[in-house]
């Protein structure tokens, strides 16, 4: 798996609590109706089949129930009629930062995106509200046949590659929010890596919500052809408004035989954002899919990266860190579906609950009848920092047959007082001691992130400890 080059960069504003005045050429208004879909299709210049596709999805969205029988109660606060479903600039998808509108460019400069692109990235897709504002790919990779664009351009320029897999890993009727995304999707990345091409530097997408009451429904499809390898990193921020914002994305990964995909997410949405994302990968023979997931922000996150291990000896892995602060609910986890012999999977999830934060691990490991000699290991650990903190763990394991082995373990505890006393006795303040203890708790997982992200993550944790411990 390719590693990101190690360079030092100026500090970026990773919290992103700032905004610029809205200057949208296209505004579909509030609520999602058939008229909204007509507006989106017309604004994007989409073909008729896609218009019908979206309307079918809208009908499905209306039919499917909200998952209130198992989801956190906060999900009931989403008011779909108070969301704006499409806001876009006149000509999205610039190839040069100089052509990007001034406010948009300043936004991403403040977030550090152009600097990262110059320092170590193979390509960048920067989404501002509903559309891509900037997209670039290194020339040498484009010459090798790598495609890195947004979903709109994928449907028009690369339909023969995009459409066969579009909606196949996560079908329209999978759940209510996949139907919503199928109806209202805009932006997101499409990546295709040809057979045998191994990207030595990561591709990055950055999702930025600027407008109030916006719903962002990005649609990402990554296809790694046989023997291909890539690392994809995703960051997301939004300013904090008093009203709710909805981010409901769909991410589909397809790793064809022998391919490797590593998908890294650092989510730091503002605390008014409802972040409901469906992430699923399909791993064929000898392929590997790795989800590395960090959730720091949002009011409610519901995200369960999944891998369907379809081919022999396929491997899936999820590494997850969640931090739930006051008033936040981080409902995250992983799903591994073993559907072929010799498949292996590994899930490691760590969560920290601070103040009244609630961290939930929700996982599924399923070994089907035809998945002989499958192996899974799941480990989830939770740290509770305050008496008001809460953590829940809901794994579900199903094993058919006598040749596979699945093991699961979970623990909940607080930071050891003896450890804190030891450090304070050596002259460290209590916040500093707590910060060291918490960083130690997640250290192994943080090291899985590219170095630039891991440094930033540790800094964010230090900041949180200072705020929460005082």
């Amino acid at each position, binding site marked *: 798996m390719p590693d990101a080059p190690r360079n030092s960069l100026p500090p970026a504003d990773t919290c992103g609590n700032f905004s610029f005045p809205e200057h949208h050429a296209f505004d579909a208004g509030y609520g999602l109706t058939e008229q909204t879909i007509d507006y989106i299709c017309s604004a994007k210049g989409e073909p008729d089949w896609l218009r019908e596709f979206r309307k079918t999805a809208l009908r499905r969205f209306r039919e499917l129930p909200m998952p209130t029988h198992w989801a956190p109660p906060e999900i009931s606060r989403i008011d779909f009629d108070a969301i704006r479903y499409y806001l876009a600039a006149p000509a999205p998808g610039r190839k040069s930062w100089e052509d990007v509108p001034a406010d948009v460019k300043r936004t991403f400069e403040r977030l550090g995106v152009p600097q990262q692109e110059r320092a170590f990235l193979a390509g960048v897709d920067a989404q501002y509200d509903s559309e891509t504002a900037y997209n670039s790919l290194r020339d040498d990779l484009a010459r090798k046949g790598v495609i890195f664009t947004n979903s709109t351009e994928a449907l028009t320029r690369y339909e023969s590659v995009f459409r066969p897999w579009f909606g196949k890993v996560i079908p329209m009727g999978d759940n209510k929010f996949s139907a919503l995304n199928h109806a209202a999707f805009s932006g997101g990345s499409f990546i295709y890596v040809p057979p045998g091409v191994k990207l030595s530097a990561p591709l990055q997408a950055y999702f930025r919500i600027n407008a109030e009451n916006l719903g962002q429904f990005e649609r990402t499809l990554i296809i790694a052809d046989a023997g291909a390898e890539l690392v994809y990193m995703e960051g997301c921020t939004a300013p904090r408004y008093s009203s709710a914002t909805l981010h409901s994305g769909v991410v589909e990964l397809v790793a064809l035989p022998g391919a490797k995909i590593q998908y890294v997410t650092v989510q730091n949405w503002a605390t008014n954002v409802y972040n409901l994302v469906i992430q699923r990968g399909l791993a064929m023979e000898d392929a590997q899919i790795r989800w590395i997931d960090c959730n720091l922000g949002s009011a409610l996150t519901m995200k369960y990266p999944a891998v369907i291990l379809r081919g022999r000896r396929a491997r899936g892995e999820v590494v997850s860190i969640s931090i739930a602060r006051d008033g936040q609910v981080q409902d995250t986890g992983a799903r591994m579906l073993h559907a072929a012999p010799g498949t292996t999977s590994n899930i490691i999830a760590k969560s920290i609950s601070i103040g009244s934060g609630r961290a939930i691990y929700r996982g599924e490991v399923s070994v089907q009848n035809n998945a002989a000699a499958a192996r899974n290991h799941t480990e989830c650990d939770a740290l509770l920092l305050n008496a008001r903190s809460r953590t829940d763990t809901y794994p579900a*394991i199903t094993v058919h047959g006598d040749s596979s082995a*699945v093991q699961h373990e979970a623990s909940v505890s607080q930071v050891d007082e003896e450890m804190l006393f030891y450090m304070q006795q050596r002259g460290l303040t209590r916040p500093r001691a707590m910060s060291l203890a918490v960083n130690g708790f997640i250290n192994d997982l943080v090291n899985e992130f590219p170095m630039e992200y891991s440094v930033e993550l540790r800094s964010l944790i230090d900041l949180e400890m200072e705020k929460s411990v005082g």
Partner: protein
Amino acid sequence: MTTTSQHSTVPFPDRRNEDWRFGAPLTHARAFADLLPGAAPAAWQTDPAVARISHPSSLAPLPSSIGSAALVQLAAARAPYAFRISFPAGEWGCAETPLVLRCTAQSDAVARLHVEVLPGACVHLAEEHTCPGALLCLRFYDVHPGASLFVHLREHGVGNTSRALNISHLLCAAGSHLRHLTTHSTHLWAREETTAEILAPDANLLLLSANRLNADRWLDQHLRQIHHAPGSESLALYKNVLEDSSTAIFAGNIRVLPTAQDTYAYLANHNLLLNPAATAHSLPSLEISANRVRCSHGSTCAPPDPAQLFYLQSRGIPLPVTYSLLTTAFLAEVLSRFSPARPTELL
């Protein structure tokens, strides 16, 4: 509204209910509901010493905390009186010769049991249920402060179509000890819903189950360990050996309320699969709302270790005997926690 008609307003288990996620819960629940109007109250037999202190009681039905409210209501309608025993202070039975509490029925039946273990009492009970049809049993064990209770529930099915549904509620008061073991054999379908609550500090709770399933038998176990008070301990260890096309479901939950600081709770479910057609579902879960706790759970589903199989065979032990030794040892861990002196006799 009568109890019989009350059940019609209470929802039946269904797949959208997390407590009934697998199998065909509505089919089995409705089958029970269809049988219950014709079911008779089961008969209880016990040792003379216990019979002297037992008496019928028309207690209100248990509130079901795990998904079967409709069945609880129906059962209370069919068996309005519970078999009630209050054990006063003193030793009642011992590990080698526990007191026997036997529930038998000749066809479909409903049984209700209410056992109180008063302060200063130490009780060893062997509870046996035998029924060729469908037996629904509501069980309530109330262990008072400072008391101890060791109870082994053994379920016997007769014939190949018998079914059993046990809904149990266990309460532990301050300083009490409760050791609860269940073993199932030969029922076509059996479901166990156990809610164990620790109401006061310094209680100690050990929940055990060891089962060997074969043919197309189905065992569905649900367990809830609820800590209301600080400074208590609860451990649960459920193990199943699955042969042929049998199926085991385990759904456990440790719930620690904000008032239960300094809790130690552990939950483990281990399944040994011996046949390509066997299936195990395991859903251990945690809901923790206090921070000064040590809570954990573990689950495994796997076949016997090939290295262990080879080791025994390399000593000249035939393969069938090897499997027998390993499966007995697998379950013996559970049984030895209940009765260190005579674990394998308990199966």
